[in-house]
């Protein structure tokens, strides 16, 4: 029962959605809406799993005075402070929103922004004309970079048009090939899961 019932649940919920989409009665009975509300409610109540995992890992760091444990303390203090604050006044509360705007938003954006530095350094150190494939990759990267920014056209008239044509025709077409392959892969995996042939999502646990 520890494996069979979850497998059955997977199949039933998958079929409910498919049935509701492709058969009139499924929509009439509101089966999809029921399944959807069950999924959303269960996900809502499972949301503290991240906070629980962080507490477990960093709580141990502090308890055992591992190296860098003060940072774990910072993490847990910030997390529980913000949980209490947002539970009390919602995430739209004045202080909660102030912290979000002052800290979470700029730090998140700065983390993304630093990638520009790394990508530049990587371009200098890794982009080598070692093989014919790497050479092609490099040439088209340069054509795109300069062509999609106004500088390309300033340097050579028509460079921008070439870069945009690349995006639309060969690159767009290859992306479509990858998209179609992705769709087929997703459908095949979905089918395997609903039919109970794919069980990886039930693995990784002991005791059953």
């Amino acid at each position, binding site marked *: 029962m520890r494996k069979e019932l979850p497998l059955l649940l997977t199949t039933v919920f998958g079929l409910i959605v498919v049935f509701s989409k492709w058969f009139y009665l499924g929509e009439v009975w509101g089966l999809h809406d029921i399944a959807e509300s069950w999924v959303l409610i269960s996900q*809502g109540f499972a949301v503290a799993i991240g*906070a629980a995992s962080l507490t477990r890992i960093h709580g141990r760091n502090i308890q055992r005075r591992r190296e860098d444990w003060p940072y774990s303390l910072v993490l847990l203090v910030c997390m529980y402070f913000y949980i209490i604050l947002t539970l009390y006044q919602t995430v739209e509360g004045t202080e909660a929103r102030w912290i979000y*705007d002052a800290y979470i938003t700029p730090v998140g954006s700065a983390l993304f922004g630093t990638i520009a530095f790394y990508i530049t350094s990587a371009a200098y150190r890794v982009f080598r004309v070692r093989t014919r494939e790497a050479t092609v990759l490099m040439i*088209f990267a340069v054509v*795109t970079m300069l062509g999609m920014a106004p500088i390309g056209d300033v340097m050579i008239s028509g460079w921008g048009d070439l870069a945009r044509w*690349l995006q639309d025709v060969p690159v767009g077409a290859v992306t479509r090939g990858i998209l179609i392959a992705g769709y087929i892969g997703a459908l095949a995996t979905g089918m395997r899961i609903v039919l109970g042939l794919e069980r990886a*999502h039930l693995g990784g646990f*002991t*005791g*059953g």
Partner: protein
Amino acid sequence: MLISTDPQIWVGALATIAVFSYMYKDNPAWRVVEHAYVGLTAGYTVGYQFHTRIKPTIMDDLIGRGYWSYIIPILIGLAIYTRFSPSLTWMARYPLSLWVGYGSGMVLAFTVPPMMGQITGTFRLFNSFDNILYWLCVVTTLMYFFFTISRENPVVKWGAWAGRWAIMVCLGAMFGNTVIYRYNLLLMRINYLLIDWLEMGAL
């Protein structure tokens, strides 16, 4: 040179500098900012979900409307926490099976029309160089990912070979696009430091 007097901008600017300082080398300021960021975002998620899902389900649906059947999904959701107990961890399969089943159903139910649009869009008149090239790029890319027929078949072999080159062109262009996007993000942060914080002029 003026400087902002808004404490919110000061906090953001100092935290941004701490993030950038990691590029020089790992340091305590960066570590504190990083750990505080992880803690605050995890806290935000809990607070947000509590007010948008947990509270409405209990107060409005269960108590208000008397939807007592919702106790079942609540219990299923709570079962995820059994992951921390070795003897009960098997119960965590229930929420996962529900979510994966529903997600797979959504894929099966809703991805067919967009996929068909992509497939039918590939069939076009061979009346221009662009159309021929487009068709060739799609087909050869698919051949590259196609493992059902042996690569010993000459059509598949050469198709996959051409597909490999087409993918290289695509990856190169995608790298170029990524660099452009990342520079745009960096520009925003530098604007934040120079314009919003140091008030050094207007973009």
